[in-house]
């Protein structure tokens, strides 16, 4: 906008200059009034053009510039207020830092104690479970071995009885066995 105004002023000024050149020879001898009149008219036209085109643009630019400055000032004030609030907050935090550290330390200690108790309880449960399993396995093993030994004992006893029967079975034994058998069959 400002550039357009300047261009118009330059054109008018040159036009006015050219017109003055054209009439220079013819009016070389004109009176002092006419010498003053044309420059005055030219100046008036120049001023009118300036008033008409340049002043609104300048006024608009100045208004925009004013608004921008006002806005920047408001933002700066807001930023300053925020910074102030932040500063106060941090000052408060710094002031409460010792208390917070103490609380955090106490909380951490309580958490650690709770965790220690939980780990100990779990370990105790696991140990009890392992002990129970071991006892059960041992009891089963003892029962199995005992069963095996009894089985072997029974087999040995059977084998011994068989050998003794083969060696010492007499006709009287056979008769007694037969009598017993017949008695059972009859009953």
């Amino acid at each position, binding site marked *: 906008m400002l550039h357009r105004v300047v261009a118009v002023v330059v054109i008018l000024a040159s036009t006015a200059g050219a017109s003055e050149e054209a009439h220079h020879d013819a009016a070389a001898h004109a009176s002092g009034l006419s010498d003053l009149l044309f420059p005055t008219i030219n100046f008036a036209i120049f001023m009118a053009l300036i008033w008409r085109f340049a002043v609104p643009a300048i006024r608009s630019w100045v208004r925009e510039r004013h608004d921008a400055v006002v806005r920047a000032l408001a933002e700066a004030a807001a930023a300053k207020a925020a910074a102030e609030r932040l500063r106060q907050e941090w000052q408060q935090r710094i002031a409460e830092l010792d208390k917070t550290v103490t609380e955090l330390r106490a909380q951490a200690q309580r958490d650690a104690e709770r965790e220690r108790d939980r780990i100990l309880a779990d370990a105790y449960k696991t140990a009890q479970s392992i002990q129970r399993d071991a006892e059960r396995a041992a009891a089963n093993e003892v029962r199995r071995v*005992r*069963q095996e030994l*009894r*089985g072997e004992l*029974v*087999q040995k*006893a*059977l084998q011994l*009885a*068989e050998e003794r*029967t*083969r060696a010492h*079975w007499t*006709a009287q*034994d*056979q*008769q007694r*066995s*037969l009598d*017993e*058998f*017949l008695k*059972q*069959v*009859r009953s």
Partner: protein
Amino acid sequence: MTGAVARRYARALFPLAKQEGSLEPTATQLAQLAAIAADESTGPVLRTPVLSAPRRAELVQMLGRELHVSELVMRFLRVLAAHNRLSQLIGIAAHFQHLLDAERGRVRITIRSARPLEAPQQQQLVATFATLTGKDVLPTAVVDSELLGGVVVEVAGKVYDGSVRNQLERLAKELTSLSSSL
């Protein structure tokens, strides 16, 4: 244990033999045929299913001639050959004998003992089982040293076990179950 087929054939033959009055000779001849069928060398020839019907007929013809079997048994053998049932001879003979024993009111018992029984002992057994069954008893004695002592009597598929072996095994079972419950 005779099969159903063998029992059916034996039951079919029995009334014919009875009608002819030749129950005992027929049973004897069947027992001879069963012995041949059970023999390791001749049995497979009788039992084989690959022989053709004419070859089987020739075979039983020859067999009957050699054993001098009656006409009834010869006809019966031809029927068995025609139906490829010669493999049932052993079962047929056993069931025929069973039917004959029932007809005559007698029962066969097998007496197994670890050592040969003395005659009075066997007579005791025969008398006892005759009383028990109400029939004449035909005993067969078998020596089986594995019994250790005592006797085992088989009567019509039922076993009376009075052997020392059985008593020892029962004792072992009782001891084992007793020890496992402790």
